[in-house]
């Protein structure tokens, strides 16, 4: 099989099963664990961008993702502090 198409299929696989992992996976009561699970569909999206040759979108997505991690972890920490 062509390597581009196999990258694309790997992207679909990670995307769909990663989403199932986020929704139904173990320990999803903990927001931090659930947020770490979100990284798997994210990798799937990155592989799909790679297969479609969207260079700028891929670069920006990686950069934005690291910023989103900061925002979410901050929100989770604050929430835990306020509810404790």
């Amino acid at each position, binding site marked *: 099989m*062509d390597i*581009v*198409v196999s990258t*694309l299929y790997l992207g*679909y696989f990670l*995307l*769909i099963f990663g*989403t*199932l992992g*986020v*929704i139904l996976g173990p320990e999803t009561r903990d*927001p931090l664990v*659930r*947020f770490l699970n*979100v990284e798997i*569909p*994210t990798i*799937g*999206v990155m592989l*799909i*961008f790679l*297969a*479609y*040759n*969207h260079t*700028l*979108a891929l*670069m*920006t*997505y990686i950069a*934005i993702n690291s*910023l*989103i991690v*900061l*925002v*979410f*972890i*901050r*929100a*989770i*920490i*604050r*929430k835990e502090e*306020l*509810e404790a």
Partner: protein
Amino acid sequence: MDVVQHMFNYSVFAGFVVGILSLIAIGYQRSDIHLLILTDVVECAMLVIIAALGTDLAEALILPGLVVGLAEFLAVSEILIQRCKLRKKEREKKTPKLFEEFLVVEEPKVEVDIEHPRMEILYSASRFISLILVIYGAFLTGFTGGAVMSVGLLFYLLSQGIVSRGISSEDIKDFWEAVAGFSGIMWALWIILGFIGFYLFPEHYVTFLLIAGGALALKVGSKLGLIGDLKL
């Protein structure tokens, strides 16, 4: 084989599967923070559906979507935290700074006296590398050129912060406003002079293309370079 045409249906199908699954999960969810996290997955589905177009149009649609998504997450998480605070009826004296969880609370104390000025490479190498990056970014022009240029500026500012020489907080305040003003002027060049010039004088399109590309590079470069002096 043309991947874009061949795989269009599969990509859209995968995007819809992910979107529907995560929307169903949102429907069953009660906690706010979980809702926010699942919204991130819905954004993944949206990106895949747009990316299935596979053209430059898809790329042009993805870039603003990402930035808007980031701003949206920042705003919604801030609203959630504020609501939580209002429910607890706690009035804190100091207003919390943005991202203060990630700032250093107290500086680590180093027993051994390291003499930075002795290491010549800390001065010359950082200047050299950042100069190369800025010049290369200027040649690339456009969005990519701006990104490369901003990496150069960022690297220079961060390395000056490590050496702790030259830049005080007053300098940074002036520098910040100067760079922000410069970026605004470049934005005006890019949109007003560059793009309106395309429509008014189509026969001189090369000139206006150069103006727009160069101004965009300088604008993105200076704007992202501002990140470099956040923690100095």
